[in-house]
């Protein structure tokens, strides 16, 4: 009797685990494929062999420069930024139990943007200063949001409204800095509003890579505690989760990560909003969606950038494409939530 039920339960878990593994594997394959395309495609198309030879350090006339100097940093930035936005978005959505509550909507990425714009445009600072300032900007926004929304009658709705207000102000600040710096060319404006991979150089990659390599494992380490938070504050506490500690670590980790990402590519629209729900759909229930969400983030950024670069006669920055995909989904989600009476 007992063994029968164990077998039954195991079978169900195995099935869900298999689905998770298949989904994750497919996402990894997609990531690799799209990354290769990023390196191969461009003004001229280079075959796989040439790309690998160029990557391994061989100097090939007309290939090496395009592949290693132009396309490689773009690809790396897309991967790192997509991973960061995807995981951080899923952390926020799971923690606050609401798909609308993501760093984009809450204005956290805008906070990081303001700091980055200030450093780049006004101070002309170097990369490490920019990254540090972005983290400070992102965290300050979180703290301000926390201070403003706490007290009696906390609700996610209130948090989101405050976030939208803060965003309006921060965007105004960005516009102002753009104006007085006279660097108001369209590409840079677009980058800070929608996100773009244009003009990413190799020098920006190490900081971002280090942040992702340190912070992602930290966040994953808390994924089991995060899934306990889903059961509500009380249930999680009685099961032995240090809820406040868990939240602080997860927020600090994900905000630091997306702040650095934002300082390099701008807040690429809707990645942190889309990745979590898509990942949950693909990988199914029962197992943590954090890793799949990060992979979905990568796939979205890579695919959108490829579409933006090559699908049309004009090159569009990645944020415009993700905006056009993401906003209708947001509207759809709102309609569904409204009909269910969840808002």
């Amino acid at each position: 009797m007992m063994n029968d039920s164990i077998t039954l339960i195991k079978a169900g878990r195995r099935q869900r685990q298999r689905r998770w593994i298949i989904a994750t594997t497919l996402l990894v394959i997609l990531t690799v494929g799209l990354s290769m395309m990023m390196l191969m495609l461009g003004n001229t198309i280079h075959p796989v062999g040439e790309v690998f030879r160029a990557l391994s350090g061989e100097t090939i006339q007309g290939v090496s420069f395009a592949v290693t100097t132009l396309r490689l940093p773009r690809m790396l930035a897309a991967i790192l930024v997509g991973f960061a936005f995807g995981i951080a978005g899923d952390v926020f959505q799971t923690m606050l139990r609401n798909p609308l509550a993501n760093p984009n909507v809450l204005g956290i990425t805008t906070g990081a943007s303001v700091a980055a714009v200030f450093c780049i445009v006004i101070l002309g600072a170097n990369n490490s200063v920019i990254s540090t300032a972005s983290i400070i900007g992102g965290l300050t926004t979180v703290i301000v949001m926390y201070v403003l929304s706490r007290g009696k009658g906390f609700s996610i709705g209130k948090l989101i409204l405050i976030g939208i207000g803060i965003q309006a102000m921060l965007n105004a600040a960005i516009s102002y800095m753009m104006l007085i710096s006279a660097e108001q060319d369209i590409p840079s404006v677009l980058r800070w509003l929608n996100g773009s991979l244009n003009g990413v150089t190799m020098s920006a990659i190490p900081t971002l890579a280090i942040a992702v390599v340190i912070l992602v494992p930290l966040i994953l380490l808390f994924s089991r505690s995060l899934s306990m938070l889903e059961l509500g504050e009380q249930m999680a506490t009685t099961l032995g989760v240090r809820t406040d500690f868990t939240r602080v670590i997860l927020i600090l980790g994900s905000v630091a990560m997306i702040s650095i990402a934002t300082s390099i590519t701008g807040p690429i629209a809707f990645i942190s909003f889309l990745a979590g729900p898509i990942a949950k759909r693909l990988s199914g229930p029962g197992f943590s969606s954090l890793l799949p969400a990060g992979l979905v983030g990568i796939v979205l950024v890579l695919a959108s950038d490829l579409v933006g670069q090559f699908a049309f006669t004009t090159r569009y920055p990645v944020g415009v494409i993700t905006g056009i995909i993401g906003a209708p989904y947001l509207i759809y989600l709102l309609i569904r939530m409204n009909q269910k009476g969840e808002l």
Partner: protein
Amino acid sequence: MVKQLTRPPSSVLPLIRKRKTHVPALLIRWSLIFFILLVLSAAASLAFGSRMVGMDGLMDGLFNPSVETYEANIVRKRISRTVFALLCGAALGVSGALMQSVTRNPIADPSILGVNTGASLFIVSGIAYFNINSAASYMWFALAGAIITAVFVFGIGSLGKNGATPLKLVLAGAATSAALSSLVTAVMIPRSHVMDQFRFWQVGSVGSGSWDNITLFSPFLLTGIIIAVICSPALNAMALGDEAAKGLGVRTGLIRLVSSFGAVILCGAATALAGPIGFIGLLSTHLVRLILGPDLRMVIPASALLGGVILTASDVLGRILGSPGELEVGVVTAFVGAPLLIALAIRSKVGAL
């Protein structure tokens, strides 16, 4: 049906009668204060800018047409801009007051509801695909965009139970805005001429205020304000709830439709000529309500006055901050208005969201 239509709704509103008793003194005092503010902001708008003008120049420019000094000429050039700013502000103020009472929602404002972005998308598309280039054609495209967006956003926001709550409307507005602004960028990027023209419009702010534009704008402003004034007694009744208003003989559906139309043409026309300017409606209406209470028959004219003052003052501030260029007035109003939105969000009860 016909009987109900012809009955003037205001005659059945005890709410308003009660207020009348102590209103005049308050109204007169504050009208005076608003008027003084209006004069001050107008004077500031004439005097300040990338080049400051002294008192003498200001007086000469305004009252001595014979004096041909450099400063006097500058002042004269700024007159149309100032008038335009006052009118646009009035339109946006009234539009905000109307939207807030129609939706019974303290956070309604054209910019927050995405109506501005809708107007932007239509103008950009107009420039790109229909080669529009006159202010009049901008106007019609912007109006169409504003109306369609407003209908869409209200549609989404009022789905489900509880109707259009502030949170639902704001989210619907933000989502729609995000979608539309991505489209704006998508239309704009491949077409450099569109980008130039559109940027001129988007950055233009009230600087585009020529006498021609004012002439073009006035009929819309007038229509909107007349609608607002006519609807305000009925809207007052509707503040008590649709049931109560119906009981008082108000045709709630019709009033809602007409006053929404008024709100949208006011902000659509202002947006068409001045570019997207946010938060004026939110700011002016809330200040007015704080001072004069909720009676729309006072809130509407006072919002118009105060809207004009705020927009003009913000424009002056933008010119000073952005000197030697100028800072879009929309940026200034966002910076002033967003804290109010945040404050409203903090104060609001969870249930109201």
